[in-house]
């Protein structure tokens, strides 16, 4: 009986390992993240966009979705263009939140909404549209929100690209 259980555990472990190989080849060659623009009325510091750009690139590198994360406005070889992505986006809404109501009744957190398009570099075909909403404590630094937004953005992107989501 013990041997049977051990064999079952070993079999499950082997199947899991085979299903998720660690040395998975990235699906895309390069990805270029652009600085996100802010919609009218969004009051965020200019440093926010810079920091979010850096975090987004860092998250893209960590995700292993692409071989290489190139900087904004860098040239990409024509041969790699079909397997390259460009991420454009806009911060559509930012609410500062309310410290008092957040502390007392748990509402009024600061929130950030952003939309992004992931397009193929060669033919500019839209591969997926991403919508991200981040809510954090109003006492926290806006850069923490940028960090969380970048993390969510890449997670959504990975999921959408894996599913082959097409724009409606």
């Amino acid at each position, binding site marked *: 009986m013990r041997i049977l259980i051990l064999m079952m555990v070993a079999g499950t472990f082997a199947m899991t390992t085979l299903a998720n190989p660690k040395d998975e080849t990235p699906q895309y060659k390069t990805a270029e993240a652009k600085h996100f623009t802010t919609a009218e009325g969004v009051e965020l510091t200019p*440093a926010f966009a*810079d*920091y979010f*750009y*850096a*975090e987004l*690139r*860092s998250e893209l590198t960590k995700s292993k979705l692409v071989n290489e994360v*190139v*900087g*904004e*406005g*860098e*040239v990409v070889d024509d041969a790699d263009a079909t397997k390259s992505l460009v991420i454009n986006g806009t911060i559509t809404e930012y609410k500062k939140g309310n410290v008092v109501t957040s502390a007392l009744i748990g509402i009024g957190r600061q929130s950030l909404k952003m939309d992004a398009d992931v397009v193929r570099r060669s033919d500019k075909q839209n591969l997926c549209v991403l919508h991200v909403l981040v809510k954090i404590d109003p006492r926290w*630094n806006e*850069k*923490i929100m*940028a*960090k969380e937004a970048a993390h969510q953005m890449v997670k959504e992107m990975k999921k959408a690209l894996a599913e082959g989501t097409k724009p409606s």
Partner: protein
Amino acid sequence: MTLRDSLRLTTTILVAAGLVWMAHLQANADEPKPKPENTISIQLGEPVPPQKFQHPPKFWIADVTDRSGNPQPMMVMKERGGVFLDKQPTVIVKEAIEQSLKAAGLLAPDSGSADLVLRVYLFHFGLAEGSGLDFFGKVEFSTMVKNTKTGESQEVKAVGTSIAKGAVRKKNMQKNVEEDIEEALRDAARNFLRGTELKEAVTALWKGTEAVPVEVPSATETPKPPSR
């Protein structure tokens, strides 16, 4: 004013002056000083391969000017005893670009033999304000690319960023900061050398060079200054 009032006033003034002096001394003591153990060396490492140009020009870096407005450009971090650079950021950036251009055979031996002269204006070098959970390295500069023959010039901007994880121990923190700035420098050099802005600038300025022989006046004519 009685003698007692006068004495009280004098004592108050002396105590206040003493407190100000003590605060001044304390502030000076908190100001970090560069020492071998808190100094880091930023190097590019492997040269960044520049993009391929249709007509590869020879570049020369005339100078790098610090436009960051930072009174202490070599201090990258003030907290926890400070972290300092071993060289001026302008020198580090110049060496990084020169190293990459030289490796690709695009660096002229002197300014006279260069097709394009670069003047770099450094706006940011080191750490920028991040979330506090990690280190945000940033290197940002703008370059004026000037054709030595026609006198025409174009601006090329470059920015490099990097995020490194935070650390508790001072030794690890210093290591992470060093790696973070090196990565940001590499990213900025890459953004400059492989950027479409540089490609467009080189193409536009090269066209100017090709057009020059047509516009060259005969030996009897007086040459006109280049239009600005």
